[in-house]
Every structure is written in structure tokens, then in C-alpha cells.
């Protein structure tokens, strides 16, 4: 192969608060790259993955971006945070060379006016709330709508879908009986739990957390004898919850656009992913959702680049964005269980999964839900 390599760039949070996911995202991107190269690259172009650690800090992400794009031609790039994606947007727009996606499912990024060259590799957070609420609406007993409480972290990430979530709930006739804001991570939440004890919501939806304090809410509320159902969005629905909480995690539900690594389903791409993961690190065993996410990002990039090349167009951001928008009923080879279409630069699809603690895995409890 002597065709010019195509560079996948990335600002990857290998350290800092998001490192727990960053290392797996990195692995997903690395493995995808070696897989696609083993398939002959993209239209014969080999793929090179160039990344830097950012510590999940915006200025370091920007530095990484400038450095990587400064010494390579980078058509697609992985951004590690909403903050970074927003910060880099103006530069991205004026350069017009690079299409970007990443760890963020922020609702704001679906705004095509402001962020024409950034897309979301799944549903945005508001759409996740939508999927969750649609599921909740089906769970009413005796014709009554269940009640719900939102628990979210005091961060940009945490607050992202709350307004639209409330609006959507109101529209659907679901009462939001309590809203709780906490710091992310290790905090004492006894007081908040006492509040929830008063309102006894049927469902609690977590957003903006990874693990703590979800466990604390669940354990304490169950100790109090409440039979609340707990749910969470993408980054709160990792295997981590099962691994760390053990039996306490049983019954927790999450919304997830991709199949879990160990899900019962299959498909050519999902099998390829498993084989590649097995090959790169045989001891790793299960691969977390960050890995799936990294892989899926790279898959979309490949698809977009391929479509653009096949159309005989240059790899500019505008052309690639067009190719992206053209994706309709795309078969992801089992990564996502149904064919997907791009809407407003996102893939508004997902499924509700439920923890089976005995089996130590998530099991689907709903069909794939594609929002329109």
C-alpha cells in the first residue's frame, strides 16, 4: 500500500476525571484502526490513529488538537468533552477540514447552525431522556402514569437534558416529583435520600454520574423499604456499576444505543469487534461501553470517508458532513441492533437494558427505540 494514510485524530482523556472511560475509548479506537487496516484500510488508504492525553482539560484538548492537526492532515477527530467541542467549534468551522465527534452526547451539539461539523455517535442526552421517559410511560400500573425524580450532577454534563426532560415529561403526563442536584463523585447524599423518601418516586433517573453516588441512593433507598426503579443515561450505564455494586446493582436500568460487549446478540461487525478486542488484549475479557463508543465513532468516520471518496469528493468537512447526513437505514453489523439513520447529526436510537446481577450483565428489557 502506498496510498496516503488517513489520520484519525483524538484528544483522549487518559487521566483526570474521565480517565475511567478514556482508556477504553482509546483501546476501542486503537483496535478499530488495526482492524480496518487488516481489512485493507479505507479504499486502500491505510489508517493512522494519532492521539494525545488531555487529562480532560479543555485547554490541553485544544493544544492536542492544534498539535495533531498541525503536523497531519486530519479529516476526522475525537473530542473528549462538551467543553472542548464547543471551544474548538469556531476553529473547526473556519478550517473546514475536519469532522468531529467524541465522548459528548451534549444536546447543544445537535445545533447544525453553530456546530455544522460536529456529530453525536448516538442519541444526544435529551434524546436519551426521551427514550427513558417513553419506557417509563409504558410502566404505569392501573392506568396511572408513574412518577419520576431526576438526580443529576452540578456540571454542564449533568444539567444538559434536564430542561428538555422536564418538558417532555410534562408533555407525556409524567409528573417529575423531585429534582436533585449533587456534586459528581464521592459525596454524602443522605439528605437527598431523605428528600426522596418523602416523595417516593416510582422512577429515579440519574444523569451526569459514573458510579457514586448512584450506589448510595440505591442502597439506602432500598434499606428504607422503597421500591423505586433506578435508571441512568449512557455514561451511567456501564458494567462498572455491576462490578462495583455487586448484588446491589440488580434491577438498575440504563439506556444504551449499542449492544453491550457481552450481549447475546451478534452480527458481523460485533463479531469483528470481539475478535479484535480478544486479539489486542486477551486478558481484558469484557470491554466497557467506552470501548464500544470509541469503535463506533471510528466506524462512522470510516463510513463517512468512504461515502465521500466514493462520491469522488474531497475530504472537506462540508463534504463529509453531507455524507454523514446521507446515512439512512445503515446496517452497523450488530453494533446497533436495528438499521439507523442520521438526524440532525445524531443517531437517535437506543434501548433500555436492565441489570441481572446474578449473571453480572445488562439484559434488554425494551425493543430498540428509534426516535423521529
Amino acid at each position, binding site marked *: 500500500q502506498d496510498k496516503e494514510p488517513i489520520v484519525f485524530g483524538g484528544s483522549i482523556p487518559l487521566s483526570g476525571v474521565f480517565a475511567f472511560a478514556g482508556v477504553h475509548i482509546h483501546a476501542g479506537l486503537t483496535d478499530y484502526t488495526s482492524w480496518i487496516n487488516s481489512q485493507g484500510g479505507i479504499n486502500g488508504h491505510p489508517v493512522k490513529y494519532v492521539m494525545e492525553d488531555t487529562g480532560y482539560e479543555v485547554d490541553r484538548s485544544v493544544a492536542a488538537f492544534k498539535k495533531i492537526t498541525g503536523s497531519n492532515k486530519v479529516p476526522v477527530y475525537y473530542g473528549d468533552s462538551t467543553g472542548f467541542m464547543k471551544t474548538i467549534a469556531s476553529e473547526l468551522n473556519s478550517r473546514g477540514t475536519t469532522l468531529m465527534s467524541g465522548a459528548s452526547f451534549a444536546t447543544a451539539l445537535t445545533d447544525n447552525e453553530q456546530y455544522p461539523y460536529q456529530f453525536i455517535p448516538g442519541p444526544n442526552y435529551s434524546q436519551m431522556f426521551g427514550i427513558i421517559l417513553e419506557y417509563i410511560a409504558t410502566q404505569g400500573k392501573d392506568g396511572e402514569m408513574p412518577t419520576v425524580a431526576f438526580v443529576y450532577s452540578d456540571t454542564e454534563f449533568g444539567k444538559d437534558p434536564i430542561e428538555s426532560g422536564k418538558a417532555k415529561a410534562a408533555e407525556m403526563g409524567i409528573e417529575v416529583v423531585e429534582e436533585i442536584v449533587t456534586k459528581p463523585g464521592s459525596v*454524602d447524599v443522605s439528605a437527598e*435520600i431523605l428528600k426522596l423518601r418523602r416523595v417516593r418516586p416510582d422512577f429515579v433517573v440519574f444523569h451526569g454520574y459514573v*458510579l*457514586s453516588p448512584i*450506589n448510595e441512593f440505591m442502597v439506602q433507598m432500598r434499606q*428504607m423499604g422503597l421500591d423505586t426503579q433506578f435508571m441512568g443515561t449512557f455514561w451511567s450505564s456501564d458494567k462498572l456499576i455491576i462490578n462495583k455494586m455487586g448484588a446491589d446493582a440488580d434491577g438498575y436500568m440504563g439506556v444504551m444505543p449499542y449492544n453491550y460487549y457481552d450481549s447475546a446478540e451478534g452480527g458481523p461487525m460485533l463479531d469483528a469487534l470481539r475478535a479484535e478486542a480478544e486479539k489486542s488484549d486477551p486478558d481484558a475479557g469484557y470491554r466497557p461501553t467506552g470501548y464500544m463508543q470509541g469503535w463506533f465513532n471510528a466506524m462512522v468516520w470510516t463510513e463517512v470517508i468512504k461515502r465521500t471518496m466514493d462520491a469522488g469528493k474531497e475530504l472537506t468537512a462540508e463534504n463529509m458532513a453531507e455524507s454523514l447526513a446521507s446515512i439512512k437505514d445503515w446496517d452497523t453489523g450488530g453494533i446497533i441492533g436495528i438499521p439507523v439513520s442520521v438526524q440532525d447529526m445524531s443517531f437517535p436510537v437506543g434501548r433500555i437494558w436492565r441489570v441481572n446481577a446474578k449473571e453480572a450483565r445488562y439484559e434488554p428489557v425494551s425493543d430498540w427505540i428509534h426516535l423521529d
Partner: protein
Amino acid sequence: MDWLFFGEISLAGLAMGGLYALIGLGFVIIYKATRVINFAIGEIMMFAAYLFLTFAGGMEMSPWVALPLAVLGGSILGGVIEKTMIRPMLGESSISVVMVTIGIASILVGLVELIWGADPQLLPGFLPRKPVFIGEMYLAPKIAYGFLIGAALLIVYLLYFRFSRGGVALRATASDQAAAYSMGINVRRVFNMAWVFGSLAASLAGVLVAATGGLSPQFGAIGLSVLVVVIVGGLDSIVGALVAGVFIGWLETVAGAYLGGEYRMPATFAVLAVILVFRPYGLFGTHEIERV
């Protein structure tokens, strides 16, 4: 107003405050002897909690063996830090030393990530899970028992400082190192012991706090709340740390419950600002002697 709710919230807050008091105590002991504001205290707590995780989780020891071992580990860490990084700073300006502790915090975070990885963790549950009711008021069991263990150590410390020469040696050393030497006080040992015992209190608190709230390399951020505690109480006052610890724990929780989680920090910092204006050395801190 729902008084039962208020009572429950207050109780939860007070219990958390007890742990703050314990950390504050660790902080104050170090400050009293060495005039070092230890910004790494949160990270020392974290380190001890990770040790506990290894002993009780990975190595499957009984938590009641793992707890003292982890606390011992944290204390040794404190002693080592003092010996290798704080002692050479003798005589430098207080802000330089503060900066050193900030550097130490960064080193510890890195070490923890290196050894235990970046994933958030939960400690194996070792405190009883049966809900505790005081009258009609519910109190989370972890917090209740955590508070009891912490209070036991607090009492031991208080008795020691009340009834031994140790307290005097500590303050003498803080006031003038050279003069303390010339009294026959082993200043290096006082420093070392202050760090060891300060870290001991912090380590115990670290395991207890992590047991309720979980653990991650960012755990050390709790140090910020403790900073408020010791400033409100007075940097060099043990009583101050106790009173302010309990008070700030209560205030944080009540503010969080009634105003919302985003008000926790501003509420405590507002109290801090008010106190500083009226009592520049905290509630119980000693005034610097200002003479010309």
C-alpha cells in the same frame, strides 16, 4: 415546616460533620506543630481508603483487620511525606510549603491512578446495614457508625492534648523551632509525630467517608470542605475543628436539602466569609501577637 424532616436532615448533617471534625483535627495537629497548611490531606485520606480497598477487597482480609492496617498505612505515608518533603522546607515561607503540599497532592493522585487505575471504586461494605432510628428519625447506618468510630478517635486525641506535655511541645515547636530545640525538644520528632498522628486521623476519616460516598482518584477534592472547616474553627484550634466540623457538616447538608445541591459550597463559603470578617482568626484561632 416539616420538623421531622428537618431533624433527619440535621442528624445526617451532624454525623457527616463529625467526620469533617475528624479530618479537621488531622489538619489542625499538623498545622499547630509545623505551621503547614496541608492541602494534601484529602489525598492522604484517599490513599488510606485505597489501601483499605486493597486489603479488604483485593486481599479479602476482614474489614476489621484491614481498617487498622489502612489507617496505619496512611499514617506512615504522612510520616514519610514529612521526612522527605516537608522537613527540607523548614524555614521557607508558609506559602512555599503550601505549594509543596499541593505538589504532593498531585503526586499522590498520580500514584493512585498508577496503582489502582482510574476507575471509580466502592469499598466493601463493612458497617452494619440495618437502618438506625433515633426516635422517629432515620439515620443512614453507614454514617451513624462512621460517626461513632470517628468520635472514639477524637476523644482519645482530646484526652492526650489535655493531659500531656505533648500539646505544649507542639505549640512551642510551632512558635519557634530554634528555641524549641534549645529547650531539649526533639523538633524533628515533634514534626514527624504531628504528621503521623494528623495523617492517622485523616486516614481513618478517609476510609469512613469513602465507605459512604465511594472512591476515585478525585476523592481528594473533599479537602476543600475541610479547609472551610479549619478556617472557620481557627487553624490552630482543636476545639475549633470540632465545633466547626460539626457545624459545617450540618450547614452543608441543610443548605443542600433546602436550597439544592448547587448551594452547598456557596452556603458554607458564605458563612466562612462572614466569620472571617468578624473573627479574622476563625472562631477559636489564636490571634497573632502584633507589636512593634
